[in-house]
């Protein structure tokens, strides 16, 4: 653990603050939902509408009759879920496609490289909307995460491919190849130690990207609207004109915490990247 800390984290105050706020926000989002006073905090009309923040309702209440404090916590929980699932899916796809495009030769590699190029160049957001519209009736937290994760992996696959291409020609890889390593053990024991730090960084970046895309989908109304999340908070506050009616607490409190989480994660990811050899691109 000490070695990892010394290797991956530049020990400074900003890092401590960032990792501290990540731990606090994630713990609060995962644990506090068990202590809610309401039967269903995501249900409508449990509390009076449009009350400003007070001692009784810490973050106020919204036009749907929900306590914004509990909506904040539930949005954090659902958004973190979406981020983690989407990042895991995106990472697996980009690892699969990137490693195949880098390691294989001939037509196979050309095809995978072309797919990576395509997903880098074309605008992903309209395609995301196209998929989400088609599955509109079935959208829930998991499906939104799966859709986001299976489309937004282009940049990660591109970097993995170039890493594999540059590692492939190193002498230790050739030594391993001639000593009879199989493909999978080659990937796990020879390539992975070099790529692990970068994979941690890519996971964090994909997590942030997924939360951002979910918020953007919420702007259009294509997310799981019955469940609290950043996207659905944006959708409902916009459709009830909360901004122009002065109910700022509905939008501001949930987003402040998610923004703090994302900035902290970005800081950690940046420092992980800085501690890697050559800025993470080998």
């Amino acid at each position, binding site marked *: 653990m000490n070695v990892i800390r010394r290797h991956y984290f530049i020990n400074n105050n900003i890092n401590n603050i960032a990792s501290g706020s990540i731990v606090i926000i994630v713990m609060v989002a995962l644990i506090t939902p068990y202590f809610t006073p309401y039967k269903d905090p995501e249900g409508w009309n449990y509390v009076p509408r449009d009350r400003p923040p007070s001692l009784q309702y810490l973050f106020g209440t919204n036009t749907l009759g929900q306590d914004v404090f509990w909506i904040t916590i539930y949005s954090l929980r659902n958004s973190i879920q979406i981020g983690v699932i989407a990042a895991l899916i995106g990472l697996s796809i980009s690892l699969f496609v990137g490693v195949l495009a880098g390691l294989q030769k001939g037509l196979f590699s050309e095809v995978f490289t*072309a797919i990576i190029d395509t997903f880098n160049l074309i605008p992903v957001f309209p395609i995301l909307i196209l998929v989400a519209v088609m599955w509109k009736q079935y959208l829930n937290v998991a499906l939104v995460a799966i859709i986001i994760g299976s489309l937004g992996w282009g940049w990660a696959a591109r970097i993995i491919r170039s890493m594999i291409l540059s590692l492939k020609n190193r002498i230790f890889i050739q030594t391993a190849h001639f000593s009879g390593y199989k493909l999978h053990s080659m990937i796990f024991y020879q390539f992975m130690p070099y790529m692990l730090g970068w994979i941690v960084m890519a996971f964090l970046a994909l997590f942030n990207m997924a939360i951002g895309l979910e918020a953007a989908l919420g702007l259009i109304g294509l997310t799981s609207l019955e469940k609290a999340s950043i996207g659905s908070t944006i959708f409902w506050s916009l459709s009830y004109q909360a901004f122009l009616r002065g109910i700022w607490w509905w939008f501001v409190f949930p987003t402040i915490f998610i923004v703090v989480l994302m900035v902290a994660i970005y800081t950690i990811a940046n420092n992980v990247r800085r501690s890697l050899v050559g800025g993470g691109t080998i």
Partner: protein
Amino acid sequence: MLPSRRRGVLIKYLVTSATYIYIRRIVFYRLIRFLIVLFIGLTTAFIITRTTPIDPTTNLINRLTASFGANVLPPETLEEFRKNVMALLGVDKPLYEQYMGFLFSVFTFKFGPSFTYFPTLASELVARYLPYTVLLLGAATLISWVVGVFLGTILSMFENRFISKLFVNVLLALYPVPLAILSLSLFLIFAALMPLYNITPGGGLVGGVSFSVDLMLNTLSRIWLPALTIIIVSGASWILGTKGLADAIKSESFVTFAFVRGLRPGYIIKRYIYRNVLVPQLTALALSLGSIFSGTLIVEQAFSYPGLGSLLALAVASNDHTVILAIVSLSILGVSIAAFLLDVLYPLIDPRIRYGGE
């Protein structure tokens, strides 16, 4: 016809000339890549529309029949009607013909009728909203790229000053904020709390094409905040990326040598660092055009700026599949054409590619 000896010289000159090498090595390769990207992108969009749990055609037919009371019509008329609508949308043909028709409609810019504004063609709607998106996207991308690359180089040069450290840290905190949240926060500040941003619906933008001072002022009053949002986010990414590149170049020995020679810092920035930063950042611009376009759609919807983003949101709200597909495929086409053009322009900046050996 030239004498054969001189013809040979001419051909030899043409074959070895920079232009020829440029066309053979750059344009040809990039053109093939552009076509492959376009093919995969459009095919993906087509496959997505055909592997759905819902049937857009039935949706449209139900909506149309509901509007004039389907229960009073005789079944034969209804069946006739269904056939006509399916022929209009081209879904009664076999799948490969539909696919060919789809590709044809993308390249001829002719899409079927919109579901919501029924007789109007989807391509007409897209053409109506497209100029505003192009204006916003073009202005914001140009400003953020030029300013970002310039500022990034300057910041890397003076990185020990307090003000540059502060600026970089502010950008590092601003960069990970999602575009949707940032634009809504700016909307909250500048439109809801302070009456600085004009939020009249449409703002008199869509409609007349006649140019007048009034229209330009009106456009400006609608465009400045969305443009500012895109410039903040993508400018931050250009500044941070450029600063990283410039830091790497600064530690190279030729720059150290230039410092030792006693050249002025301004000259070193212009001739040694800026030129070396421009090339990779232009590639990055070509690569990130897609995500910039996606970002523009998000920002347009957040500010209800009358562009493709708002049209897309409108189409999503009313399940207008033709318009959505038209926007998706045209954005794939447009972004890959723009990336191809940038890719081809690339050698004009980098002489190493222009005069590179075989």
